[in-house]
Structure formats: structure tokens, C-alpha cells
């Protein structure tokens, strides 16, 4: 008879297999980092540019967004419709994204059609014309989307959190509202496209890429005019604890955000802080999740996370909770913060945390697509790929004390921003 009470033996991985990307420089200095994966018949190319948002006026905050959105809306030789027909026919997709510090323009295509779609993709980067009619539609769409978001407590709490953390006068801290869309003009986009967009581009590439594709990229993107505008260094400091509360009478839940600024990922305290955050709220077995969800049932989900910026990271707790229990949830979050700072961590919990983190790390490198995306995120913050090996080594070797100390050093509730909406 099988003895089910005995858990099977297990091992904890002590190394990750990292595929180091190859790198090639295009004539204009754009680096192309690539991991060829011959067995996958898809090619994904991400062009990452440094956002030079700093010098944008507050009322012009949507310029980068609309510039990216409008790339596929017409070029000197092709209409919006022709571009859509072309990419859809060859099952290729152009998508864009916009973050605090980087903007991305991405092309995903089958290997079979990559060489055919690449020249048209290039046109978007060099010959976009930003037609008025398409821009007007996009503006109305964005404005409606913002009005819909305004009705979501979680969206609004995140906006208020940004504002309190980074300041209303900083590009990171600006709240997006429908009215700001109106001021965006075609000329703004053209100016941004011509003078700012191609700022320190880097290319990240994976899938079945061979010499032919690399050469085509060199040929078609190697003559783009690129710029090197350095962003203004931002220094964020924690302010005294304050709460922003916005009541929403008809809301059936309340959204909570709590956070503060912490050291960047190049700092020696970063790894211990990252582990501490996981213990507190970074996984399903975390203390916040066990306490607020699995024990009290006050929420469908609560988590804490670390966001990465070049000058510093920021830390945040987030949850949508039962309205009547929102104060209690605040108290419990603070209680868990104090417990981490002052109480020893039970051996069992420490072992679970360590093993979970090691396994999770390993599972994040399971395809070349994940691999290049992990590489991109450390590379863009100025670190090397060995960062992940160091993460693993740290997971396997950290001391309980390190966690407590880093919590004491950085989690100071008298300097937290608190948001409550609902």
C-alpha cells in the first residue's frame, strides 16, 4: 500500500541555463541582441527607445502615446487601410507600449513572411505622416477609454498613487484624464517623431532568426537617424506619511495602495529587499495573501511588488477589499510590516520561500522568448545577464537576519503614501 503521508523527496535547482544573446551593432550604432530559436517559426523584434518625456509640458503628456499609436495610420506611400491590409494579410503584428522610461515598437511575424514585412515596418519608422482624420478618431477613442477607466476604483487609485509618489509636476506623476487628449495636435506628433522618438534605440530579437534576417535588419534599420538625449536625472524622496481618500458612494469595494521609494536594483540592498517583498506579499503563500485573503477572506487578491526605475525602485501594496473592512486591512498590512521587522521568520516558512523563489526563477527562463525579455529588463537598467545567477545564489544563501534588517531599513510607515478609493 502506498504511504501517501510521505512527501516525495525533492531537490532545489542551483543553476539556471542562460542563453546569452549574441549582439551585433548596426552601422548607426543600434545594438541588436538576439537569441536564435530555430524550432519556433515566429520572429519577434522589439525596438526599445529611451523616453525623453522630461521636457514635455504637462498638458502635452499624451504626445508619445499618440505618436506610437499613429505609426500605422499612414505613411508617405501607404494609407492606413493599406497598412492594415498588408500586415493582417501576412499575419504580422505591430504593437507598441509605453512605460515610464522606455517606449517600445514591436514587430511579430512568422519566419515565412518576415523579410516581406520588414521593409513596410521600416516605413512606419521613417515615413509616417500622421493624418488628421485618423488622429481625430484615435483621440476620441482614447478619451472614451479614459472616461471608462475613471469609473474603476483600481485605476483611479493607481493614478493617485503615481501622483503622490512622483509629484504632479513630474512626468511619472501625471494623472491621465480625458480632457488632456484634446490639446494634442498633429504638429506635436510630427515634432516628437522627428526629434525625440529615436532616442538610443536598442533591438531585441528572438525566434527563428538566421543570417538573412539579421542582414535585412542591418540594411533596413541601420540607416535610421538616431539621437542620444539623456534624460534629466530624477531623484525621488519619501515624504511624511499621508493618506489620500476619495469616496465613491456607489462602489461595492475599496481599492487600497500603500507604498514608498526604495533603492534601485544596482544597490546591494536590492536583493534582500526583493526577497523580503516576496515574503510579505510577492507570492500566493505570502503573509499578506495568507492573512487578508486565505484567513480573513477580505479580498480576492492582495499583493506587494517592487517597480524598477533607473534612479530608484518603488514598492507598493495593492488590493481591492470589502468596503467595510478597509480600515482593518490597513491595520493588518501595517501589522505584517512590523512582524517582518521584529519577529524571527519560522524555519519552515523560510524554506518554502527560498525553494519557491528558486523554482519560480527557473521557470521564467523556459523559452527563448522569456529569456530575451529577462535579458532586456536587466540590460536596460544597466546590469548584465549574470544578475539572475546572482539572484539565484542569493535566494539559496540569504540569512533570515538580512530580511529583517532590510525591512527595518526601508519599510518605515511614517513615510508611506496611502491611497483609498471607494
Amino acid at each position, binding site marked *: 500500500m502506498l504511504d501517501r503521508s510521505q512527501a516525495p523527496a*525533492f531537490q532545489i535547482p542551483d543553476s539556471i*541555463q542562460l542563453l546569452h544573446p549574441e549582439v551585433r551593432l548596426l552601422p548607426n550604432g543600434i545594438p541588436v541582441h538576439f537569441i536564435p530559436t530555430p524550432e519556433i517559426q*515566429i520572429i519577434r523584434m522589439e525596438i526599445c527607445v529611451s523616453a525623453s518625456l522630461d521636457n514635455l509640458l504637462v498638458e502635452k503628456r499624451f504626445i508619445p502615446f499618440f505618436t506610437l499609436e499613429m505609426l500605422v495610420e499612414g505613411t508617405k506611400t501607404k494609407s492606413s487601410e493599406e497598412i492594415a491590409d498588408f500586415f493582417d494579410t501576412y499575419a504580422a503584428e505591430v504593437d507598441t507600449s509605453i512605460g515610464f522610461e522606455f517606449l517600445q515598437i514591436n514587430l511579430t511575424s512568422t519566419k515565412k513572411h518576415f523579410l516581406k514585412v520588414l521593409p513596410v515596418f521600416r516605413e512606419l519608422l521613417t515615413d509616417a505622416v500622421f493624418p488628421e482624420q*485618423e488622429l481625430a478618431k484615435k483621440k476620441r477613442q482614447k478619451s472614451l477609454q479614459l472616461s471608462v477607466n475613471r469609473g474603476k476604483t483600481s485605476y483611479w487609485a493607481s493614478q493617485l498613487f503615481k501622483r503622490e509618489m512622483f509629484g504632479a509636476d513630474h512626468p511619472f506623476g501625471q494623472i491621465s484624464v480625458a480632457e488632456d487628449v484634446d490639446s494634442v495636435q498633429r504638429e506635436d506628433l510630427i515634432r516628437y517623431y522627428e526629434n525625440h522618438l529615436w532616442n538610443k534605440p536598442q533591438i531585441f530579437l528572438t525566434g527563428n532568426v538566421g543570417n538573412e534576417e539579421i542582414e535585412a535588419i542591418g540594411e533596413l534599420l541601420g540607416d535610421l537617424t538616431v539621437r542620444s538625449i539623456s534624460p534629466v536625472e530624477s531623484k525621488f524622496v519619501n515624504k511624511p506619511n499621508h493618506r489620500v481618500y476619495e469616496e465613491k458612494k456607489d462602489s*461595492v*469595494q475599496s481599492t487600497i495602495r500603500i507604498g514608498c521609494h526604495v533603492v534601485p536594483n544596482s544597490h546591494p540592498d536590492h536583493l534582500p529587499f526583493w526577497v523580503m517583498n516576496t515574503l510579505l506579499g510577492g507570492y500566493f*503563500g505570502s503573509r499578506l495573501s495568507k492573512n487578508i485573503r486565505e484567513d480573513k477572506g477580505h479580498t480576492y487578491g492582495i499583493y506587494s511588488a517592487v517597480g524598477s526605475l533607473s534612479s530608484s525602485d518603488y514598492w507598493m501594496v495593492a488590493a481591492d477589499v470589502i468596503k467595510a473592512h478597509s480600515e482593518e486591512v490597513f491595520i493588518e498590512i501595517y501589522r505584517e510590516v512590523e512582524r517582518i521587522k521584529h519577529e524571527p521568520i519560522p524555519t519552515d516558512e523560510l524554506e518554502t520561500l527560498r525553494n519557491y523563489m528558486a*523554482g519560480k526563477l527557473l521557470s521564467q527562463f*523556459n523559452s527563448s522568448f522569456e529569456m530575451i525579455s529577462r535579458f532586456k529588463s536587466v540590460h536596460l537598467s544597466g546590469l548584465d545577464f549574470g544578475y539572475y545567477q546572482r539572484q539565484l545564489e542569493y535566494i539559496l544563501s540569504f540569512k533570515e537576519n538580512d530580511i529583517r534588517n532590510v525591512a527595518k531599513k526601508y519599510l518605515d510607515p511614517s513615510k508611506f503614501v496611502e491611497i483609498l478609493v471607494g
Partner: protein
Amino acid sequence: MINYQQFTLDNGLNVIVHEDLGSQIAVVNILYKVGSKNEVRGKTGLAHFFEHLMFGSSKNVPVFDTALERVGGSCNAFTNTDYTNYYITLPAVNLETAFWLESDRMFQLTLQEKTIETQRKVVIEEYKQRYLNQPYGNVLHLTRGLAYDVHPYQWPTIGRDIQDIVDYTQADVEAFYRTHYRPDNAILVVAGGVKTADVQRLAEKWFGEIPAGNIKKADIPREPSQTKKKIKTVYADVPSDALYKVYHVPGKLEEGFLQADLITDVMGFGKSSILERQLVQKGHVFSSVENYVTGTSDPGLMVFSGKMEKGQTAEQAEEALDKVVGAFLQNGFPDQFLEKINNQAEAGLAYDQIQLIGRAMNLAYFAYLGHPDLYIREFERKKNIPIDSIMSWAKNILKEENSSVIYYKSNN
């Protein structure tokens, strides 16, 4: 396209193995053939609620996820109208732990009162977070409720209303477990850095002794053909009107489903699709539009939905939509659309190869439909459907009397 081997244990558990020996990771995906379509009125949402209970304790495992996290694993699950799917990712060397955990909760889940009561609260919060505390959040409830008269697809997986979640009893969840969580009602897929022989040995060892259920499932009422258009108007504090118009379509493996799917590929897929072009880019009534089929195993819905630009009404939107649909029925569509759709389908197959977990879920899903090879067979079948067959199904489906419409109107 996806290599696999399969075998069935004596107790009826269907096991599928996908070896990817380059991987250090294993995925263990277990699909139970139970979804919200197996629920009854008054107890709606039970399949999804039960998914939450599966993460409680079983006889030898006090807390499921802690035991898994201790060996470097993580897990999650989802429930839909047709089935419930659990998946674990862990270092391949620790594969046996996943077998221990999954077999223990299939064999002897403890269903403690504390778990039931806490998860009841958690699921009520999930209901509120996803369906009540969002603009337009209740629209799934409204459309399904209007379109279906007798089939359980009339409520979404979360349940018809919160009161049903409040009312589940201990006896309800125990009966649900005994009826549906049996080896002969499940498909186990093991994928990644694993060898078939090892999986076979582990499957026998851990699942072999679990008795089969041999339980005959209750019949699910078949939705009769709709004979009259249904309309419902609701008002809410939302920034603009929205329109939802749905038509009944055949179930996933039934004759006509692929034609329905192709109709939505032509009408609604991508920026070059007919609806996007006619209604969004060239029109001023729609701000956005969507068109898709639900793809359920029993007869599903073809959904047309959209948000209106500010000041435009849902009724005007329906008129504009009907005009475009009418022109489509009259004129069909150019041949080039098929080239586009085939290229898209081929690209889709290639994308599916990227993630190990996606491959595992695909195998489980198509095995649930009848056979893992249906994945590729349906792809081939779809590629060879001629235009006149698509158009004749379009005329059959896109009839007013087959439609249900929600005018979701803004109070402003």
C-alpha cells in the same frame, strides 16, 4: 504539431505526455470535465467555487500551495462553462511531488468548514471585483441571461448572483466533489523535461488506486431554436452607450461551427476586418467593435459588441451594424480574405509552440473535446471550407429571429 503519447489507467484516467527534454521545467495540467454547464439553478457558480476549494487541504496535505511552493512549484487554475483546469509548473526533477499533490486532492479532499467559509468570502469579493465594481461589468450576465432560456450557459461561470454563492451548503460541495472529481472524468497532461516511462510509472503509483466514479452525468437541457428576436434595455452610470448583439451558433465540434468561426474572422479579426473598417474607422457611431464566437462545446453565441462614441446611442449603433451585416450577407467577401485567414491560422499554430504550458493546455483541451489530434484536424478542416459554405451558414445564423440585443445605455 505537438508530439505526445497517451494511455489510460484502469480507473479511466486519461494521461497524455509531451516530452520536451531540453526543458528543466515540468508542467502538470489536470482538466476535470466539469464547468458551469453542469450546474443547476439556485446553485450557480458552484464549479468555479469548487475550484477554490481544491486549494484547501487533502488528507495528507494541510495546505496545497505551501506543499508545492516548498519544492519550487507554483500553480493556478481556471473554470469556464465547460471544464475546470488546474496547472502546476515546477522543476522537472520534482515531478513526483505534483503527482502526490494532485492525486491526494482527487482522492481525498477534506473540504473543511474554515476553507469553505473563507473561500465563500473570497469568491464573493471576486464577483464584486470583476462584475460589479467595473463599468459595464455585468454585461456577461445580461447577454447570457437574455440569449439562453433553458441551457445553463445562461449564467456566467462566476454564478448568476451572489445569493447563490451565499447559499451553497457543505452537502452541495461534497456531492459536487463525488460526482465530478473522479479519475474517469479527468485528463492529466504532463509536459516538459519528463520521460513517458517515468510518467507512466508515477501515474500508476499515485492515481492507480483512486476508484473510478462511473457516474452518469445529468443531462444538460438543449436550448431550443430561437424564433423571435429578444431585446433588453438597461441604464447605468457609464460614460457612453454600449451595444451587445448575439446570435446562436453551433457547438465547437458541430457542423457549422467552423463556418461561424470563419464569419467572425472575416467580420471581426484585426484592423483590416469588415466591422473595424466600416464601423470604427469610417463610421462615427462606434468607438470600438468586437466580433467573436464563444467556442463552447454546446451551442454557443456569436457576439457583436461595441462601445459607442459619446452622444451616439446603442439603437443607432445596431442600425449601423445591421447595415454592414446586411451588405456582408448580400455581397459576401473578397477571396483575398481567405489567404489572410489561412496565414493567421498558420501563425497561430506557430505561436502555440512557444510556451510549454500552452502546449500542455492545448493537448488537454482537445483531448477533452474528443482527441488531442483534433487540434490539427480542426485546423486542416477549417482551411478547406469554401466561401459558399461560409455564406450559406452566415445566412442561417445572422437572422433577426436568432438574435438577442442588449442596449446598455448611459445615464448621462
